[in-house]
């Protein structure tokens, strides 16, 4: 898994490339934590190049989402691929997480 972080306006964009499982999720969790502690109000997970996500990673994202809400920030997933969308739907986590379709500019417009 490789994660490229870029900050723009008050958003932190984490672009993921690779596969997310119990061997790699700690790396992402640490990056999300760092972003939530920064002054970014919006944390964007750009998933176009993420080829696999497991159930454990999904649970971690739910936890991160809840922490973001507690500090009045937002965590959103963009460009979710077919495998991850299926996982989100099957586990009904799609009702819990913010998932945005379409290009990356979209979440910035939604930023406060």
């Amino acid at each position, binding site marked *: 898994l490789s994660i490229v972080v870029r900050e723009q306006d008050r958003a932190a964009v984490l672009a993921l490339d690779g596969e997310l499982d119990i061997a790699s999720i700690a790396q992402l969790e640490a990056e999300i934590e760092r972003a939530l502690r920064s002054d970014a109000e919006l944390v964007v997970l750009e998933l176009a190049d993420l080829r696999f996500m497991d159930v454990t990673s999904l649970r971690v994202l739910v936890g991160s989402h809840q922490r973001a809400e507690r500090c009045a920030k937002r965590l959103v997933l963009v460009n979710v691929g077919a*495998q991850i969308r299926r996982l989100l739907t099957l586990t009904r986590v799609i*009702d819990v997480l913010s998932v945005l379709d379409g290009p990356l500019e979209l979440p910035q417009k939604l930023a406060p």
Partner: protein
Amino acid sequence: MSGITCTHENEAPADVGAMHHALFYRDAEEYVDGVSQFVAPALAAGEPVAIAVPGAKAGLLRERLGDLAEEIEILDMVELGRNPARIIPAVEMMLAKHDGQLLHYVGEPIWPGRSEEEVREATKHEALINLAWPGARIRVLCPYDATALDQRVLADAERTHPQLIRGGEHRPSAAYNGPTVPIACEQPLSASPPDAVALSFRLDQLIDVRALVSEQATAAGMEREGVMDLVLAVNELATNAVRHGDGGGTLHVWWRSTRVVCQVDDRGRITDPLAGRRTPAPDAAGGVGLWTVNQLCDLVEVRSSGTGTTVRVHVSLN
């Protein structure tokens, strides 16, 4: 899963005996009579009724029940019960939906023509019904085709149901021995075939586990979506092995003209007989892996003892 015998035998809730009935029917008339007698009082009382039977049987019942059938949630058991481990979570959702009302549920998970493996898992499911909802407001009727099903299957149904109905007569089952799983359902699985591809893995090889499953399933002719589902399912089994099975395990994959089979062996032990049969909340912290596997695979065989755990999953190619 000796845990069932040891822990629960003498602790069965008082109402289990009254809640789980097998209906041995010899023809279509006994079938519709038996099911209507079970559901009609509930419908008259305005209580919820759900029926999960093979599609053709649902037609017979609709015909008999007429307008009353509109009050019933009717599901195709061939779909719902393809993997019998999906039935208990589905019924649990119904219980939650009807929130404290007495639910009458008709479930026919075993029908003539099911494979030996499927019948074994469906029999285990029947046994687990006696454990699944202690104290819940539910009554269960399970029709068995007494003419076409094998005698061994019917004998196991007597072991898994506290109450039997035959020729319109109700009696307690003498063979019912508390909520235990019949020994035949716990026999070790057959050895994986010589042509199976094997891979030993630890944490850092989960990615190789996924690659191998993807490659084999694709070679077997599985559609892309099916491959994604199988890769996820086996990843969850391998993840459980890394977490609970001494840091790793062994994967075997093989395929035949109709299905792909994957098996994960590890040194861990599953002690909860209902593992993977409870629908997790969307924000649940754990207990999701095996449930996910059950949702994604057509048949899941779990064998767990002091020496380790084997989980074999089957996914159909069509």
